[in-house]
């Protein structure tokens, strides 16, 4: 793949990379900075890119994560406290907790978005990135694991925790629209 072709293909993923950068950094200006550095590094390494392992997009995601977490590590060494990128399981429902069961018939999903957005942004970056790859990119666990370079079990664990947390956040909305939340309807067998 020559450089021109690489640039064209890489630019097709600009929005996706920006979205991921935004989820990692939370701030548009930081996201733009991350994206620029990501593309700069990608373009510099274009001649070493091999179109395997899912193509350019996963590769860009990996570079982006490298840039972001390298900065986090740096900032943690500096005098200014950075966002705690680590999730505190005690503060959230764990993967071993059953998902609440819903009577979903009356749920207006259009009303969910604002509450959901708030809930997503309350998660740490590790959970937002897995949600993004799953929800927006539509990736399989295996593909997500390759990008995050973690075992599939870790992807599932993070994903399930994140989803359980979102469900908890949506609980009040369900009550507002008259939906009954049935805790633990899936009884152990």
């Amino acid at each position: 793949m020559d450089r021109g072709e690489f640039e064209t293909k890489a630019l097709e993923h600009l929005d996706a990379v920006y979205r991921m950068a935004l989820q990692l950094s939370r701030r548009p200006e930081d996201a733009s900075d991350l994206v620029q550095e990501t593309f700069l590094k990608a373009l510099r390494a274009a001649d070493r890119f091999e179109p395997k392992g899912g193509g350019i997009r996963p590769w860009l995601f990996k570079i982006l994560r490298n840039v972001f977490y390298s900065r986090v590590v740096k900032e943690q060494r500096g005098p200014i406290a950075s966002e705690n990128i680590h999730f505190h399981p005690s503060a959230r429902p764990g993967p071993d907790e059953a998902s609440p069961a819903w009577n979903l018939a009356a749920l207006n999903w259009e009303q969910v978005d604002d509450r959901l957005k708030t809930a997503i942004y309350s998660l740490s970056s590790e959970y937002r990135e897995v949600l993004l790859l799953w929800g927006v990119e539509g990736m399989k666990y295996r593909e997500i694991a390759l990008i995050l370079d973690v075992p599939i079990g870790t992807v599932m664990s993070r994903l399930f925790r994140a989803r359980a947390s979102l469900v908890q956040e949506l609980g009040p909305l369900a009550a507002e629209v008259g939906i009954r939340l049935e805790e633990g309807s899936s009884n152990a067998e």
Partner: protein
Amino acid sequence: MSPSEIANLLRTAADEEMTSEQSQRLEAHLEAHPADRAIIDFERRLREAVGRVMGADEAPESLRDEVVSLGGARVEPLPFETAAVGPGAARPGVREGRRFLPSGLAAGFLLLIGAAVVISVISPRQLFEWFRPSQINVDVEGVSGFPSEHHRCATDEQYARKKFNIHSAEELESHLRNDFGWEVEVPDLSAFGYNLLDAGDCTMGAGGSGVDSIHLRYSNDQNVVSVWIEHSLPSELTHSAGLKEGVAYRIVPLDRRMGRDEDNAYFAWRIGEYVFRFVPASVDRSREMAVGIGMPDVTPSDFN
């Protein structure tokens, strides 16, 4: 099944990621609890909603323009290998590159005049030494600070796939061959009085773009030095510093707030598919040790 197993099974079903065994279990469960089909539907709709909410953001046009302009002159190799690389340095450097591009001919002419003057006053041998591309100082922002990463790998289960429980070169070589498919000779520093203390590998989800790296620690009972081996393709140094084979690098981490981090400087070089880092660059005989395990030979003053 426990409630948690049921919940995870239903989520996995919603994601269409079930194994055949899970499918059978799900079928049996839904026969007994048909109402739980609603949970699968809920999880699917939750995924759609997450996609809708998180997928709404688009890159600003100004960013698109910036990225487009990274092409051409912006992605050419850095004009000087000693230039700073990283988020704080890359963009200003690039802008300068574009600004000076139209005056390239004039700059080249001046360079020729300068070279003629230099050649007239120094010997050919000196000239050769000056241009010998065997050592490079690189200030790199965004690369990992080795000690902190090493500590993280050694202590954080999330990052360390295999703890630092390897204590012999033979065991490590076997681990690398069998688990990574790497054919790497474990560096031997015994000639310098340093013996392998321990080694382990680390999945650098943070700080290394998911790089599988191998950390080795050596001790002479007074100091500890470390060697970090990683595959060159995903290595952050490959991207940040453009590591070339046959060149010795002295990497000085560059922090936007704290400036140059000389205390954490280290040597780096590339051999074939692998990148090696030697830490720290400040221990007596560090350079000799690094050269002893494969770093291209350079004179001590080259890095000063």
